[in-house]
């Protein structure tokens, strides 16, 4: 489905400054928390203080005595409403997260009671007076405890504490093992993290005066999916629910879920017939939105003497916390790892078992990369360990296993479109050659330099078949856009996506401007609103520019064709000889034969007597673009250069280099920004960010002093280099790139630490204390190359 613009693109590929920025730098953007409605009630949640307990009683007598005007609701009032996120894969054990806990609580922070007053301060006071009596239950604080024989079941009718346990296989793994010269088995671990957009979550819901229309303002990445879920759960007609995401301050996947609070606020607005506002605070965000990662992978590679991997066996376990999240389910992270582990390598036999373990912690959801940072950590650490064990240069080992021809169908049946895997390795080798040289000859006795890299793929813009295979509530994978040219030739684009930093208002305008021969400034891109945009699944999964942008490009193409048809009649020229540029329709090569786009737009809507016979009035078009069945594969290599002080364990990141290929680039400034921001999140995963629970399931890292985010000091500039291999299977050859930056850093940095110390790194975060432990294991061996 290759689409081409009919003439030389003027804006696609250009470094256009962002059209959304003036309001953002001047404080004029409006988020959910900035919205104030008359008669609004503020919601404060009473949240579970224990990780696992039965609810003995909830005493609200002090609340009623102290705050006579406050309203309070518990699980008994709200009844069976819940978050139901179950796929129908055979091993799935279904569960429901109650909107407010009823008999039992399963993690610290789970909502237990809802308190409403007219003021955001007094509501906190009122909520403090609710007395909840818990009977503590044994806490399943980690994978081992949850899977131990005799462990209590997390849900009724469950056998064992697994949401899902599935396998994926391809090829003859036994034969691969039998033929292997080396069997290399390793265990890798990634820590639990939080996603942490700077704006916390927020929801406001209000009925209109007739009581017929429920409007929900939410900091969501998925407005239409939220509408669908609310309609199902509240038993409302979907045409009577409007979901609007105003300005949203970052998401990174965290806000790509429907949460209990979303359903609760909507229910309260209907129940009380008052506008209800809930704004999450940072502690709530850290303990009770979603978490990410917490993987354990056991990999076994069957390798020839020359380093060719004949087969790969993987056992993947993820501690996914207490509930399954909607719409991606508890299977999302482990399933992703099982799907992507073969990566850019030609592996003929593969067997993966993946499982999602239920524990008494915050549920794991989707956060930038979704399983792939962990998968690539394991894959690329294993490649290094194979290289070292066999005495082969790590880049050479990768080259020996690399996929060479495109399209390539991997062992699980996924077809990769065209990429630049080998070229990217060549390029990164050149870029870090001076650092490799420095690493070989340390200048100071107590300082070691290491260089490490990670090569990986990112499946992006995947279409509906990929989601059907998961059999989870996400169900589908298309995106949509509506494009309308007004009588003055300005254009509105209504995208079903929700933009929270990706720059869609600019890049979509670039795409549409090229189609219509107008300027990006003539185009207003709107998003995050179910009232104005056609159905769509929202912004996640590195799909926005390829599918949502692709839909805008195609819808604009329909309008382009109509403008050209009108112009063709007027100019007495064949349509294929007419181009739109500089706000004109003109005959190519004959600048005297032209008519203004504004005249055409006016004719199409105001002076329709000028239209060709039989042509309908109007300049509006809607396009739905589904992704290619297996998506389009962006590829990248990340390289890290670290400096380690052997006397203290201090680790400094001296350099971070990216070579990436996301196909056709619409706006290089925005691509670089996405890559850099992703990389720094990945550096956070590698070095600092760790959400910690104690053995009782109590969260310990509940503020930004304890949960360490990357900050500017201590980070190098992120160097970004591009190769552009347009995809043959997407509009304009675009591939997604939103998540890629976050996928590679943990692996690259761990490989660099291994290179510096000659000791393998099996676990993140690589904190100074962990480096210190590694230093104590050092043997005087040289790990080869990068």
């Amino acid at each position, binding site marked *: 489905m290759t689409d081409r613009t009919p003439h030389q693109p003027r804006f696609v590929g250009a470094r256009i*400054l*962002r059209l*959304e*920025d*003036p309001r*953002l*730098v*001047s*404080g*004029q*953007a*409006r*988020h959910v*928390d*900035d919205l*104030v409605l008359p008669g609004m009630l503020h919601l404060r949640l009473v949240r579970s203080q224990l990780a696992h307990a039965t609810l003995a009683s909830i005493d609200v007598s002090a609340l009623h005595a102290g705050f006579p005007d406050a309203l309070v609701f518990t699980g008994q009032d709200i009844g069976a409403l819940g978050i139901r996120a179950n796929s129908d894969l055979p091993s799935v054990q279904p569960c429901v997260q109650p909107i407010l806990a009823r008999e039992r609580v399963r993690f610290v922070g789970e909502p237990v009671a809802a308190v409403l007053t007219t003021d*955001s*301060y007094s509501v906190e006071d009122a909520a403090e007076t609710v007395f909840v009596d818990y009977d503590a239950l044994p806490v399943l604080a980690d994978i081992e405890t949850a899977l131990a024989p005799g462990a209590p079941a997390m849900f009724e009718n469950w056998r064992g504490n697994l949401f899902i346990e599935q396998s994926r296989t391809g090829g003859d793994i036994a034969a691969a093992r039998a033929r292997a010269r080396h069997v290399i088995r390793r265990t890798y671990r990634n820590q639990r993290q939080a996603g*942490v*957009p*700077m*704006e*916390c979550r927020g929801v406001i819901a209000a009925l209109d005066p007739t009581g017929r229309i429920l409007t929900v303002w939410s900091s969501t990445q998925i407005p239409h999916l939220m509408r669908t879920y609310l309609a199902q759960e509240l038993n409302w007609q979907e045409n009577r629910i409007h979901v609007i995401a105003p*300005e*949203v*301050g*970052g*998401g*990174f996947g965290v806000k790509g879920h429907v949460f209990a609070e979303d359903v609760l606020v909507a229910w309260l607005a209907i129940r009380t017939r008052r506008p209800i506002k809930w704004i999450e*605070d*940072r502690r709530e965000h850290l303990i009770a939105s979603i978490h990410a990662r917490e993987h354990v992978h056991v990999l076994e590679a069957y390798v020839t003497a020359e380093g060719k991997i004949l087969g790969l066996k993987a056992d993947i376990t993820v501690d996914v916390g207490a509930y399954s999240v909607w719409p991606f389910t508890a299977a999302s992270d482990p399933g992703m790892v099982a799907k992507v582990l073969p990566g850019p390598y030609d592996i003929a036999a593969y067997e993966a078992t993946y499982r999602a373990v239920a524990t008494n912690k915050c549920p794991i959801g989707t956060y930038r990369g979704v399983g792939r940072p962990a998968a690539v950590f394991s894959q690329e650490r294993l490649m290094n360990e194979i290289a070292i064990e066999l005495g082969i240069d790590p880049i050479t080992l990768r080259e020996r296993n690399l996929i060479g021809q495109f399209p390539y169908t991997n062992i699980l049946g996924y077809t990769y479109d065209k990429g630049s895997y080998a070229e990217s390795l060549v390029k990164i080798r050149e870029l870090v050659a001076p650092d490799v040289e420095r690493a070989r000859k340390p200048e100071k006795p107590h300082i070691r330099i290491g260089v490490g890299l990670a090569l990986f793929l990112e499946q992006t813009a995947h279409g509906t078949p990929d989601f059907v295979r998961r059999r989870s509530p996400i169900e589908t994978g298309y995106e949509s856009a509506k494009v309308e040219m007004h009588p003055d030739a300005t254009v509105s684009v209504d995208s079903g996506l929700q933009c*929270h*930093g*990706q*720059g869609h208002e600019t890049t979509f305008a670039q795409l549409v401007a090229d189609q219509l021969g107008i300027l990006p400034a003539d185009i207003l891109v709107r998003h995050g609103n179910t009232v104005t945009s056609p159905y769509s699944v929202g912004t996640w999964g590195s799909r926005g520019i390829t599918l949502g942008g692709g839909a805008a490009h195609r819808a604009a193409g329909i309008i382009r064709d109509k403008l050209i048809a009108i112009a063709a009649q007027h100019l007495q020229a064949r349509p294929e000889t007419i181009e739109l540029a500089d706000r004109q329709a003109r005959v190519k090569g004959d600048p005297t034969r032209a008519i203004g786009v504004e005249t055409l737009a006016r004719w199409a809507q105001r002076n329709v007597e000028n239209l060709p016979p039989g042509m309908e009035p109007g300049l509006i078009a809607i396009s739905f673009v589904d992704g290619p069945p297996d998506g389009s594969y962006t590829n990248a290599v990340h390289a890290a250069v670290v400096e380690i002080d052997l006397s203290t364990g201090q680790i400094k990141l001296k350099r971070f280099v990216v070579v990436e290929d996301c196909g056709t680039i619409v706006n290089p*400034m*925005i691509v*670089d*920004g*996405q890559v*850099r*921001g*992703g*990389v*720094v*999140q990945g550096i956070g995963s590698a070095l600092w960010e760790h959400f910690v629970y104690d053995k009782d399931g109590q969260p310990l890292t509940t*503020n*930004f*002093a304890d949960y360490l*985010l*990357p*900050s*500017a*000091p*201590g*980070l190098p*500039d*992120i160097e970004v280099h591009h190769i552009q291999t347009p995809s043959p299977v997407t509009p304009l050859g675009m591939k997604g790139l939103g998540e890629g*930056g976050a996928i590679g850093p943990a692996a690259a940095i761990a490989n660099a630490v291994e290179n510096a110390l000659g000791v393998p790194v099996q676990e993140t975060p690589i904190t100074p204390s962990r480096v210190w432990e590694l230093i104590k294991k050092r043997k005087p061996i040289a790990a080869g190359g990068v």
Partner: protein
Amino acid sequence: MMQITLTVNGVTKALTVEPRRLLADVLRHEFGCYGVRFGCSHGACGCCTVHVDGQPRLSCIAFAVQCDGMSIATIEGMPKDGALHPLQQAFIAEHALQCGYCTPGFIMALAPFVERGTDPTDTEIRDAMSGNICRCTGYDGIVAAIRRAIGERKRVDSD
């Protein structure tokens, strides 16, 4: 309740506020300065930075009553004569923002640094940014924006 007077972006108002009400809330809801944002509410991320008597301060850990009689500037007060502050312009030019939620805090924290008339190294610029968290950009664009704004200031000074 306490009686206080605040001057915000040149507008003076007498207010009756609870002693516990945060400066950020008062700026947002009494003065309509919604560019003042809560990022953490514990003084760790810098989103809520405003100028109190010319100094960058965190409005999420200050009570409004502590600022009685003081003059406060927020992001809304940064443009002069209809033109964005050079640092605001530089943020756009260098793609120093994505979602933009933290941006007002960064600009308020760093405008005095830009204006102080020194020529910092990149390390000094990064150190000056240490009180603000941006989750989107990876900070490179912000460093470049500060560098650009300092260059612009030097150009203007030498004219």
